[in-house]
């Protein structure tokens, strides 16, 4: 696993780096916020450790820039200040966790393990129900045959598969799957349910979506 460590105090950086490397991590170091943003844009990290107080660009502003570029790598903040406002601002800027200095390196290691573990579970997204498998990242829905789904079809199918045999109203499905689409109306739910139905049939699935236009829908075993 590869980590980015952004910490301006040389001695501190050296000490953390040594412990991380001793625990099997590859570590890149940055000594100010600008360098951290630059490295984050060039490399794919499994997690990033950012100090809040850094020259040129503070950790919170650096993280805002990193997140603005669409990077969702887990981030843990290190802060010398224990003020509530700083912690809140850091989390709001997109951090996943924080540690207040001074901290035990053992705790830092545990938090990195926890963050990267969670992310691993999230990313290896593949759900199987009956004879049907949905590979979330690839958008592949398969049983006897395979078809590729569009992004919103994957979201809707994933939602159904995570709660099988449960009824969801058109409104519930709409707000879960289309929450980012202000210009859509609820009629889109029926269209996508219809797509999924024909695709479930085409792969000879042992699952079906029950329900009527505008009403409630559930994913049921046949």
């Amino acid at each position, binding site marked *: 696993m590869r980590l980015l460590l952004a910490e301006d105090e040389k001695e501190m950086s050296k000490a953390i780096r040594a412990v991380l490397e001793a625990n099997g991590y590859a570590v890149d170091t940055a000594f100010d916020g600008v360098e951290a943003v630059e490295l984050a844009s060039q490399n794919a990290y499994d997690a990033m450790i950012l100090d809040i107080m850094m020259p040129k660009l503070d950790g919170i502003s650096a993280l805002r820039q990193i997140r603005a570029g669409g990077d969702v790598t887990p981030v843990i903040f290190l802060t010398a200040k224990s003020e509530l406002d700083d912690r809140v601002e850091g989390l709001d800027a997109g951090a996943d966790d924080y540690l207040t200095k001074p901290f035990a390196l053992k705790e830092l290691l545990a938090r990195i393990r926890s963050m990267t573990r969670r992310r691993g579970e999230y990313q290896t997204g593949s759900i199987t129900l009956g004879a049907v498998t949905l590979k979330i990242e*690839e958008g*592949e829905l398969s049983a*006897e*045959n*395979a*078809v*590729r*789904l*569009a992004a919103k079809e994957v979201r809707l199918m994933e939602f159904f598969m995570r709660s099988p045999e449960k009824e969801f109203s058109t409104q519930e499905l709409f707000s879960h799957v289309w929450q980012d689409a202000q210009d859509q109306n609820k009629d889109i739910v029926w*269209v996508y349910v*219809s*797509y999924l*139905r*024909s*695709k479930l049939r*085409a792969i*000879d699935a042992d699952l079906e979506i029950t329900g009527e236009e505008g009403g409630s829908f559930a994913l049921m075993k046949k």
Partner: protein
Amino acid sequence: MSSIYGLNEQALSMARYRLLEMLEQKDRIQFDSTGEHLYDHVVSRIKSDESMREKCRRRGFPETWESALVEMRDALGIRVVCSFIDDIYETRKALSEMEGVRIIEEKDYVGHAKDNGYRSYHLILEIVNPLRPDPKDGPEKLYAEVQVRTIAMDSWAALEHKMKYKKDVRNQEMIVSELKRCADELASCDLSMQTIRDLIRNAK
């Protein structure tokens, strides 16, 4: 050297046009009643003398009209290319209702795609030989191999064919798996279009 088909070339040609004519007639009937065509287009061919001889040799059969017309069943080939998935099954139904034609074998690679992603509906038809030749000169029945598929499946098959017959393609394995992904995406699009067509129809 005379043709492997012997005196049966004209019979094959007549059977071909009879089938095409019946398909056109079914399409016309459907269009008149629903305003929508049964299929987009049809292509057909009679296997060339050379390729039929090559195939018989490869399969270990003598180069005679019996081998070409009785053992082999693809001397006459017809491909029906449809706009929508449901039209494939409508076309199958139309073929099953044709006079003097019998479906003797069929494989649904639409419902059960091949591992590489290939999708099409395959049929072998048996047709009464329109010339009714002397049994020593020609068979009583002729066969036709029919493939029914959507436009998307058709262009996919053309691309896959290109790759299969081109030697030393770079990254062959990657191309094969990308083709499979494409086939599944096209299948998904075909299904979405079918669904939209049904939604429009039902809204009328």
